[in-house]
């Protein structure tokens, strides 16, 4: 199954989803097409007019352009999702995934979508890591109907 993850570029989540036999929907795969596409002048900083229109499907015109720009990439990815995992309290959410408003909107859209959803916390010690792995494994195996 295609599993959406928040944050969209997490190494730990990407690895766990793949390890337990599912296909992670990640920001990196989505950006790949854009950065190797020679038609865009300075990827990934440039948006095409088409991206702007796509972004409007997920965030209104009054929403800051940065959020709409992000949603133009994240939104279509979420549309493909068959399940989702949200990881809260990531200590590193700055940079391209550091816009709090975008993350709040994305979490809201994931919760609103009628798909199996798991919400976990970033592990701060060994016990929390064990809880995280056990929960993710049980969730992903449950998607197979096991």
């Amino acid at each position: 199954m295609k599993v959406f993850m928040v944050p969209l570029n997490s190494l730990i989540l990407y690895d766990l989803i793949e390890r337990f036999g599912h296909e992670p929907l990640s920001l990196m795969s989505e950006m790949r097409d854009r950065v190797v596409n020679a038609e865009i002048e300075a990827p990934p900083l440039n948006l095409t007019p088409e991206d702007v229109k796509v972004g409007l499907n997920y965030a209104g015109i009054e929403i800051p352009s940065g959020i709409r720009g992000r949603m133009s990439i994240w939104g279509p990815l979420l549309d493909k999702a068959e399940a989702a995992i949200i990881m809260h309290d990531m200590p590193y959410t700055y940079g391209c995934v550091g816009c709090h408003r975008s993350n709040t909107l994305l979490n809201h859209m994931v919760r609103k979508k009628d798909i199996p959803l798991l919400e976990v916390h970033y592990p701060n010690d060994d016990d929390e890591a064990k809880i995280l792995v056990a929960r993710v494994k049980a969730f992903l195996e449950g998607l197979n109907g096991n």
Partner: protein
Amino acid sequence: MQDTTETRMIMISPTSDITPDQLVRFVHSLGLGLGVKETCYGINIQGPVENVKKAFKEVRNLDPNRIFSKVRAFPIGDERRCRAHHGSRPGYPQLEKEWSDLPKMDHALTAMEAGEPVPVKKKPQPISIERFKEIIDEVSQ
């Protein structure tokens, strides 16, 4: 044109005995014709999607609980990212943080394989009113 190649980051947990150099030699020895770049955290491999998947499967078998991976958007040596071309490195602090936490994931995966029970994390309890009053008195003195 449809891109049929993939670039994948392979990260070695600090708890592993495997070195990036060993991984580079191992991937070359597979003879899959992949581009390989040694990094401080592991290696990046690049090539046709199927070959990258085959190579990663073999690499992970070397140390399953201590080798982690995700795909990467930018090709190896891309001028917009590669330090050799003075590229910017956004996202690296995140990678560094997750890399430093890989030993926790290693312990968790190993414990799960060994069938250890999952620990129950107690929720932090609020302190009593009496204790709170004591703290107020201590602080205000």
